[in-house]
């Protein structure tokens, strides 16, 4: 391993260039991951943060909370959740999604609210302020903003309230009394979904994330190809020297470990720097750009990069294995 590290250190310019290009590719991957995670958060953070794993919706809702209308009480031991997109008005209009849970529920944020009161996502306060009374554009029902709690759904802010307020709102709206889902374990005559199913059913979520996943997959493959090509070329350039080493009895394993250590050091360094730069980017990108640093995903994609890159050493390692040391004598390795 020290053989590989010594070569990297003493040929800093050559390996610095390889590191720089690897860094550019890994950084592109981590930045795209940051954007994907930002949009994922913007689309389904409120659902993701609910402390429940099982959702029961009507079969025709296809897993979309805003399409599910359940009347009656399927199971008293379960928790109702109401979700509805609304347009709020007070001078200007603001779209948001209303989420409601029972006041004493611990599944969502603490909702110590009186009837008519709501907690809003901080982005909602770009239009309104705490203490404002805002009106539902369709029904005219009035909500009072009493506090802030983080919540995003379908790329918009979430407004949290209690089921009491939800029921009062429905009365004012004049529609049938319903909830969107029943949460928790039970066997109601509804269709059961996991939390991940619900998130992936948010309109646009799967298409968005699928696009980003494909971009990352292409980047991983292209990055691995580039890195493989670099190290393959470096190996080809060194063939006479490697042939000599094999001729004098140095094990192929020693030379192979040197190569793998160089790939590992290059990719791990690039991943660490890229992760750090991505973390810095969260401070730099404007609020209008949905960008989020999720250490789990950064680690996952960095680890994938490392694994794919190490797999990419198979080609130069094969070349090394096939190298006939006999050609080293007589100078026939070109």
């Amino acid at each position: 391993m020290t053989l590989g590290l010594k070569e990297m250190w003493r040929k800093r310019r050559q390996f610095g260039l390889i590191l720089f290009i690897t860094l550019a590719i890994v950084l592109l991957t981590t930045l795209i991951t940051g954007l994907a995670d930002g949009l994922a958060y913007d689309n389904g953070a409120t659902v993701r943060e609910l402390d429940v794993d099982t959702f029961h919706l009507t079969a025709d809702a296809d897993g979309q909370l805003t399409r599910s209308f359940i009347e009656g009480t399927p199971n008293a031991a379960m928790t109702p959740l109401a979700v509805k997109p609304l347009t709020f008005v007070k001078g200007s209009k603001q779209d948001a999604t209303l989420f409601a849970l029972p006041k004493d529920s611990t599944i969502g944020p603490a909702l110590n609210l009186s009837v008519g009161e709501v907690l809003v996502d901080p982005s909602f306060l770009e239009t309104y302020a705490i203490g404002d009374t805002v009106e539902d554009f369709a029904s005219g029902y009035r909500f009072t903003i009493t506090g802030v709690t983080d919540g995003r759904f379908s790329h918009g802010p979430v407004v949290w309230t209690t089921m009491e307020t939800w029921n009062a709102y429905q009365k004012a709206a004049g529609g049938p009394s319903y909830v969107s889902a029943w949460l928790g374990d039970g066997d109601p005559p509804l269709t059961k979904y996991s939390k991940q199913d619900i998130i992936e059913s948010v309109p646009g979520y799967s298409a968005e994330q699928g696009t980003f996943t494909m971009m990352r997959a292409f980047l991983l493959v292209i990055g691995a190809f580039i890195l493989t090509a670099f190290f393959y070329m470096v190996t080809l350039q060194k063939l006479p020297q490697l042939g000599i080493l094999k001729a004098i009895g140095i094990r192929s394993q020693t030379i192979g470990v040197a190569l793998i250590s160089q790939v590992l050091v290059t990719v791990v360094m690039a991943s660490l720097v890229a992760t750090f730069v991505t973390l810095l980017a969260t401070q730099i990108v404007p609020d209008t750009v949905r960008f989020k640093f999720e250490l789990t995903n950064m680690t996952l994609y960095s680890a994938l990069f490392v694994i794919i890159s190490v797999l990419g050493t198979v080609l130069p390692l094969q070349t090394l294995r096939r190298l006939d040391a006999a050609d080293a004598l007589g100078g026939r390795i070109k």
Partner: protein
Amino acid sequence: MKLSGIYHAYEQPILSGVDLSVAPGECIGIIGPSGSGKSTLLQILGLLKRPNAGSLFFDSVDVFTLDEEARRKLRLNEIGFVFQDAHLVPYLTVREQLELVQGESETEGDAIGLLTDLGLRHRVTELPERLSGGERQRVAVARALINDPQLILADEPTASLDFVNGRLVMERLADAAHNRNKRVLVITHDERMLDVCDRVLRLRDGQLIAI
């Protein structure tokens, strides 16, 4: 070390029944025109090529009956190579060139002492690019000697050097035979260098002939 009845052919026979015994402390020069089979002979002696027929005995063991790994260990521990262009690892210092070979065989030869004997004490921390051609070749000789091998094989060791430096390298090789009791085989085109050898053989028509 004994070579017995070595026969090897590519499209035509190139070695036809080569016999050779090298005693400890003996330095042998081998000459011959291009294409006479010198490199093939060296590859066979260096355990890098298996001949079509014949045997090579090291300590009474026919090395071509050994598997590849055993032959590699034999190359590492019992054969020292000196190549035409030194072929040092460009990113290792003089001392590290020797330590690489030592590390692989886990031997504890005195690298500094050997380099001192070869007049390289003051160059141990230098990279090959900062050495003269003669110094590089002397490092190659040190690398060949560090594991205390039985046999030193030198393939045109003076071809890239001027006469003075070539002479110095040849003297070091002869010194390895005479003062370190090594078997030394030197293939060269430069007949001016052969006077340091105890015996000179010419490879002609696939056979070694004493001259």
